């Protein structure tokens, strides 16, 4: 026992001052602080957060929504590769699937912190209210997480330790990739359902005029696909620059980035249209919420975070060939898209709650409330992010998650030989 410990300490001593060691140390510190914060939350209850009866959903919900939406790269790229036949992007889809698994587990962690009765988490699966969008989201997320576990099995099968210790199991897990097209179909269905339903969850809240609009689900779906692909590409490029374990094919990433720039044009159009249509005429509650967004406390988030840096600048950077070809500008643009998505989710969640519409009779009176996350919310929230970063870093190092040299064998392709000569 003593020997094992001395060995562990020796390894730590030798490796701590390498970049990898420092990175792990940093993440370990963030995670330990988060662990303390998390224990405090479970022990003292949600009273130590800055959440109130007027703003019951805060930073954690933003982390939950964001991590689910940046996981959308998994289903969209898998659909592209296995359903639309763009097979050469398979290595990117592999990275996206792994990010998806991390993202959804991050969302689960955020939810466990956020719900008042984490001990009753399982009841969400036992008792069904099929009228509730949150029920639908819960079901789809649970099922999709299962799909993601199966989809990522071939990735985990490449773990050296598993291959040596349980070769038969590793072989079985590897074999899962034969079913990739089927998982892609199920994943596409489940993801389309819950990514848009997350928006609809807000869109059906009649009590809050800013949120009550049908385009909410379209915006959530669209932005999730963009953000999910952007994060996958950014993470791949960044890790290839930081470690020799990650190998990318820049031409593939450049092509997907170009596609992303077209998606951004479409997304900008939707946002513009949504913004113009919702601004038209005075509607109590909605107009005030827009006021918070455009000139109020969230205006920096809205104009810079969501629109300028989140859509417009990266769109131009990715459309303009010289900047798209430059890895630096491309990475910057991709990171901006992800940041814009997080800003969008934060604003959507918070702004509808900040403008409080009174129920007193007569002309609707709208008052404002405030919310800024408490330290304990930040600490535990950052821990969830750190967990995601740690999981991805380990994946890159030990599972070759970002390796565009890996080519999987063809799926379900049947070669048909013509029996007669064809005359063109």
């Amino acid at each position, binding site marked *: 026992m003593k020997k094992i410990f001395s060995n562990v300490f020796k390894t730590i001593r030798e490796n701590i001052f390498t970049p990898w060691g420092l990175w792990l140390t940093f993440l370990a510190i963030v995670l330990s602080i988060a662990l303390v914060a998390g224990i405090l939350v479970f022990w003292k209850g949600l009273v130590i957060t800055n959440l109130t009866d007027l703003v019951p959903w805060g930073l954690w919900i933003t982390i939950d929504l964001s991590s689910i939406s940046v996981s959308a790269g998994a289903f969209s790229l898998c659909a592209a590769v296995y359903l639309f036949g763009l097979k050469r992007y398979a290595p990117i889809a592999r990275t996206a699937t792994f990010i998806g698994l991390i993202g959804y587990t991050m969302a689960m962690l955020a939810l466990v912190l956020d719900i008042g009765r984490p001990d009753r988490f399982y009841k969400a699966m036992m008792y069904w209210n099929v009228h509730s969008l949150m029920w639908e989201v819960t079901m789809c997320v649970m099922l999709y997480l299962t799909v993601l576990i199966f989809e990522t099995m071939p990735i985990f099968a490449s773990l050296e330790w598993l291959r040596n210790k349980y070769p038969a199991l590793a072989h079985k897990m590897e074999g899962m990739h034969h079913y990739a097209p089927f998982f892609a179909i199920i994943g596409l269905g489940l993801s389309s359902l819950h990514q848009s339903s997350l928006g609809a969850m807000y869109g059906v809240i009649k009590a809050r005029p800013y949120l009550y609009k049908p385009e909410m689900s379209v915006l959530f779906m669209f932005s999730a696909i963009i953000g999910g692909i952007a994060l996958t590409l950014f993470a791949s490029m960044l890790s290839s620059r930081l470690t020799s374990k990650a190998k990318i094919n820049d031409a593939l990433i450049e092509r997907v980035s170009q596609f992303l720039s077209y998606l951004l044009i479409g997304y900008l159009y939707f946002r513009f249209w949504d913004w113009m249509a919702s601004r038209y005429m005075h509607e109590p509650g909605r107009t005030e919420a827009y006021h918070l967004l455009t000139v109020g406390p969230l205006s920096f988030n809205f104009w810079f975070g969501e629109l300028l840096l989140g859509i417009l600048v990266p769109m131009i950077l990715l459309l303009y060939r010289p900047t798209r070809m430059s890895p630096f500008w491309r990475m910057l643009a991709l990171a901006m898209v992800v940041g814009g998505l997080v800003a969008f989710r934060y604003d959507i969640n918070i702004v509808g709650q900040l403008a409080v519409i009174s129920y007193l*009779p007569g002309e609707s009176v709208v008052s404002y409330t405030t919310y800024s996350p408490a330290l304990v919310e930040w600490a535990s929230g950052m821990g969830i992010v750190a967990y995601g970063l740690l999981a991805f870093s380990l994946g890159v190092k030990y599972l070759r998650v970002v390796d565009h040299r890996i080519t999987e064998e063809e799926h379900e392709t049947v070669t048909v030989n013509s029996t007669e000569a064809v005359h063109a």
Partner: protein
Amino acid sequence: MTENNFNRRDFLKLSAVGIAVAAGTQAIKQADASGGKKGEHQWAMVIDQSKCTGCGYCTLACQAHNDVNPDIEWCTVLEAGEVNGKKIYLSRPCMQCEHAPCVEVCPVGASYYRDDGIVMMDYNKCIGCRYCEVACPFQARSFNWEAFTGDNPAVPEWGTPEVERRPRGVPEKCAFCYQRIDRGMELGLVPGIDADATPACVVACPTGARMFGDLNDPNSNVSQILRKHVSYRLRENLGTGSRVYYLPADAEEMES
């Protein structure tokens, strides 16, 4: 033979259509019932703003009878402007909506309709996601951010607790003192007439500004006064169909 064959096919077609129609009507029926089943009674409350003096007895009686944390008010009293220089108040319990947003959005069905229209909370089912709080147009729900462990300052002056305290981590709200209604009716009392079968806030009101009764009974006090008097409901434009009616403050009535 051909004739016979044709007939059989016709019969099959007809029965298929019949089954489809039956299934369709069943589906429509079910959709109809989604807004809560209509039972024998439909409890409703009427609050007369001409009589309300804003004393807050309703809040205190509610806190005592339902053992509510002093930080939480199931029935809250707000100032609502002036008529002829006299302040007007608005007392707001849960609206017991016919199409309650909280019931529709609850992922586990912890909020549900009773046959008599009361919107209930199953505090043992609730996972504490707070979607109902976000969805309620009347801010009628309060979350238990921490456990209520101390003494209830409203007890025993304003009454004695009749229900269990809610645990930490679930939202709570008014349920028209269902426990008083149920116990009272078991004893053969009539809610709205006999104090022991009537919500605590109605009983406690010193000016008689609150009335309670059955909307299904045309002779009940609430049915009668709603026929005679102009009334309104809060945020009626949302179409939630609330079961709390307000009689607007009337200058003449306030004088008398």
